[in-house]
């Protein structure tokens, strides 16, 4: 079971993910990112503080959009991963492919950094 809330302010779309993303619920994360992309958002921030569990299905959702983010010049950043969840990202080396930071402040700085 996962709940995803969307908040937009100052060009930044924020997705707040709460709960568990597994083979059954990853479709909701997939839909939320796809909808945000289709709406033309260029800066996305995913708040994962409430994400208690993610399986390969959820990691696969993030990976499947990396190419689109690159092609469309979309800034995408994940922040607030719990330790146990962060370990799973590291197990397959996703931290090298996806921008992951600890705090909201760092996430916003990355999105607003025109030099990056």
């Amino acid at each position, binding site marked *: 079971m996962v709940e995803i809330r969307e908040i937009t302010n100052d060009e930044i779309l924020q997705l707040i993910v709460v709960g568990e993303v*597994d083979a*059954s619920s990853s479709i909701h994360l997939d839909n939320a990112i796809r909808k945000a992309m289709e709406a033309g958002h260029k800066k996305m921030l995913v708040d994962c503080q409430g994400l208690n569990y993610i*399986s*390969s*299905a959820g990691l696969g959702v993030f990976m499947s959009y990396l190419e*689109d983010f690159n092609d469309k010049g979309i800034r995408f950043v994940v922040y607030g991963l719990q*330790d146990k969840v962060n370990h799973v990202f590291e197990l*397959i*080396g996703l931290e090298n492919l996806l921008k992951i930071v600890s705090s909201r402040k760092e996430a916003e700085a990355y999105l607003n950094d025109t030099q990056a």
Partner: protein
Amino acid sequence: MIHRLKAHCSIKQLREIRAFVEKVLKSHAMSDIEAYQIVLAVDEICANLIIHSHQGNADESFEVCINYKDKEEVIFEIVDEGMAFALNQYSEPNLKDIIIKKKKGGLGLMLVQRIMDKIEFTKKNNKNVCTLCKKIDKDS
């Protein structure tokens, strides 16, 4: 003592399976991170089995058994009668390929291999048995 759970071949059952595995692991004192990873490995095998071997047919079922060997190793057996999985035909996917092809799958078994000490797919009494073994870190 062997802990058993019978589950239907529906991805909606994954949550219950995870809760079952977590409860057994936590009763044997284990760190959050280690328990999470073992739960994840079992979840990945069950999800693959439900989706690929049983096409999510909830009328079919399978069993998850958990056994501890000398308190040093936890052994899982996931038993079903669907299409058998051939581990020898599996090769770990390349992450770059997954990204370029925008594939959403293919990472599950990679995670299981990173987490577990042993993975084995065998046939016993006409049933498919996936055995996962993990040595327990006693200091955790």
